């Protein structure tokens, strides 16, 4: 077996192990939340017997480890359980499958994340390379200042500023990013433009500065001096001699930011009233809809692990020492 395949399988195994531990943590953390769903729904006046019956119906009376295995086994098969919400004291059951609740929201979140990533990643790489090439110049300083400024403001502030300029003063984009499953693709892009720009402004600094630093860090290497002395131009040195050796740290930072785009955008979703998974999770926490909270948390964990796995793989395949062992 090629060592790279072996390493990838190892990482994959480690990823699964991590996921297992994370699922335990998610489950126990929610166990430890104060309050009780049954009590909360039925109200303070409910009879203890009623609450007990309600809990039994939801399966909340079983020991925690049994509920964990039920949940985990279901999750492996793609069944995240049934949402608690939609049930009420009268016994009417309009509850939905967690998967059905999360799926459309997740699709929206992924759409927004991809759009932001498609703008932010190439932009950061290009800016990072250019600032490394023209380091310490006026251009370099302006880009650094600008990106640091946008990352320093809270997300909602950036969002409102964008709304002010692009939705209110100049009516280019809509200020509300309300999409539903019937919205067509072009319309979707148009409506998600402002949240995507907001996210771009928030994450560019980190990726761009890492690209710049990773390249500049290599410029002191003897092989860069060697490249200079063999007549390579500045551009050639950066693109051909420094960048190929800088992918590993850059990929890690990109993965980190992409994960953030999926799991950390609740503020931006709220500002633009965008129906993403972040809002769903916040709502679920408020209503103590445990299966939905668990489902969201699990998806977030998978996102982190997967993206970091990809970053690791990029780190490996761009390192000839690992790709072409002795």
């Amino acid at each position, binding site marked *: 077996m090629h060592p790279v395949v072996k390493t990838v399988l190892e990482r994959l195994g480690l990823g699964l192990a991590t996921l297992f531990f994370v699922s335990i943590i998610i489950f126990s953390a929610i166990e430890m939340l104060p309050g009780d769903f049954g009590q909360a729904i039925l109200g303070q006046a409910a009879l203890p017997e009623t609450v007990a019956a309600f809990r039994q119906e939801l399966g909340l009376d079983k020991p925690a480890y049994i509920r964990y295995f039920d949940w985990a086994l279901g999750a492996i098969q793609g069944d995240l359980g049934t949402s608690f919400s939609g049930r009420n004291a009268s016994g009417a059951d309009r509850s939905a499958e967690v998967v059905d609740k999360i799926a459309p929201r997740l699709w929206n979140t992924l759409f927004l994340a991809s759009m932001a990533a498609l703008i932010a990643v190439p932009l950061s790489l290009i800016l990072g390379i250019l600032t490394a090439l023209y380091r310490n110049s006026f251009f370099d300083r302006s880009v650094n200042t600008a990106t640091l400024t946008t990352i320093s403001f809270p997300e909602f502030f950036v969002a409102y500023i964008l709304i002010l300029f692009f939705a209110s003063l100049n009516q280019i984009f809509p200020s509300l990013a309300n999409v539903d499953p019937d919205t067509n693709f072009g319309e979707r892009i148009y409506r998600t433009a402002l949240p995507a720009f907001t996210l771009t402004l928030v994450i560019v600094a980190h990726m761009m500065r890492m690209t710049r630093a990773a390249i500049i860090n290599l410029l002191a*290497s003897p092989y860069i001096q060697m490249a200079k002395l*063999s*007549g390579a131009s500045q551009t050639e040195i950066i693109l051909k*001699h420094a960048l*190929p050796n800088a992918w590993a740290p850059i990929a890690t930072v990109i993965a980190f930011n992409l994960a953030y785009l999926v799991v950390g955008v609740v503020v931006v979703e709220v500002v633009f009233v965008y129906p993403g998974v972040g809002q769903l999770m916040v709502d679920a926490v408020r209503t103590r809809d445990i299966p939905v909270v668990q489902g969201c948390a699990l998806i977030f964990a998978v996102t982190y692990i997967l993206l970091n796995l990809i970053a690791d793989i990029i780190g490996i395949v761009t390192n000839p*020492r690992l790709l072409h062992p002795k």
Partner: protein
Amino acid sequence: MKNKKENSTLLQIKDLKIEGFSDERWHKIIKGVNLELKRGEVLGLIGESGAGKSTLGLAAMGYTQPGCRITGGQINFDGVDLTKRTDSEKRKYWGNRMTYVAQSAAASFNPAHRLINQTTESTIRAGLKKQNEAFDEARALYDALNLPNPETIGERYPHQVSGGQLQRIMTAMAMSPNPDLIVFDEPTTALDVTTQVEVLAAMRDIVKTYGTAAIYITHDLSVVAQMADRIKVLRYGEEVEEAMTRKMLKSPKEDYTKSLWSVRSIQKPEKKSKDIILEVKNVDAFYGSFHVLKNINIKLPLGRTVALVGESGSGKSTVARVITGLLEPKIGSVKFKNRELPPSLKGRTKDQLQKIQMIYQMADVAMNPKQTVYDIISRPASFFAGLTGANLRKRVIELLEQIDLDESFIDRYPSELSGGQKQRICIARALAANPEVVICDEVTSALDQIVQEGILKLLGRLQKDLNLSYIFITHDIATVKAISDEVVVMNEGQVVEQGLKSEIFSPPHPEYTELLLSSVPEMDPDWLTDLLKARNY
């Protein structure tokens, strides 16, 4: 082939001055040096570290390192003054008419690209040859440089070939555009002696065959004697003297040059000793599944020096790790005064730890940069001997005196010391524990020749005064001659032979010892030629 008229001047440097920026101000690195090089001629630049030889070598290409600037003089290359050219104009010369061979080939190849692409990169960029033509030529050069599998070695990545091979490939890279001038910057310093011979021979051959002019920078006189037609000696950025190689070797004029010549001549008469203080018995050791040491037996006589000689990877330093307990041997044991030591560091008593101390190659990194000399030396003195307060301070001053430094050094930080002083502090730190055995791991190899001499003399004196026993690990035969009583030759994790210095150095030798000893360059300019003849190259 370019038009190369014999004996016409290719490079002429006039009154060149270069400054470097450090510690918030500009320092003079080159203080008005003149240099002339004819086509096809090889000039040796020799000097100690800080003499400015690398700076001058790079300046010959019109290149200055970041943080350096040319403040005066001319660099005329084939009639063009390079000091007046912009970088983009000079790029037309670099990698085309002038090329560079760096000291550490391992660090100077880009890890991300295949060797043949790097070998031919500048040739193709300059438009001198088409890709397949350049590749064919590169393979021919690999063959001429005696590289194994010249047809396919270029497909490999830098980490897939050995240091000696990389250095030859870098020479191929320098030859690929068929330049007028090659600057060799200490190209064999990082190599083992047996490898160095092959690389030197290959470089000399190819430079001769193509009639390329070269500047050969080194601190090693015997190496430059093999390579250069003329030698220029530099010190503190100034020329000391210049002469044809044979003349320079026979009758150097300046005192400084003579002192460079004399260092290699320290000799220590060997002494026998029957008492054995330390013994390594039947030791086998592993790094993971890699078998590093195979049945090692070494005896260290009391008050004597045993030199461990071998090339990199022969297991010399691993022996030190086993003796000190840093690496547990799989089989075998270490005996100190006839009593077996616990195999691992953790199992040893304070008393056992105290008796064996180490001094390292890189004094720089062997000291905590945030600690003063006092902190560094006092720590073992208080830990092992339990000294405190005024007694401790007295002991530190006494130790400083033993290493020929005075009390004024006590509050300095390592960064405020020279290379030789740093190594002296490391010696004092080892002495502070009152050891009986001191293991010196390549303690002089990072130092200049003259500083080396001082350290070796100091170690010799301390041995006499304190009756110390040394295990002296080195790859340098001259150092072995200067310090040892007995010699252990190691190769591929095995002891080839152990014996008195006089026995080891006089024939007949086992095959490996013969190869090792015959590979040590001598000051005779015909040495390499004769050696190659004898080896039937």
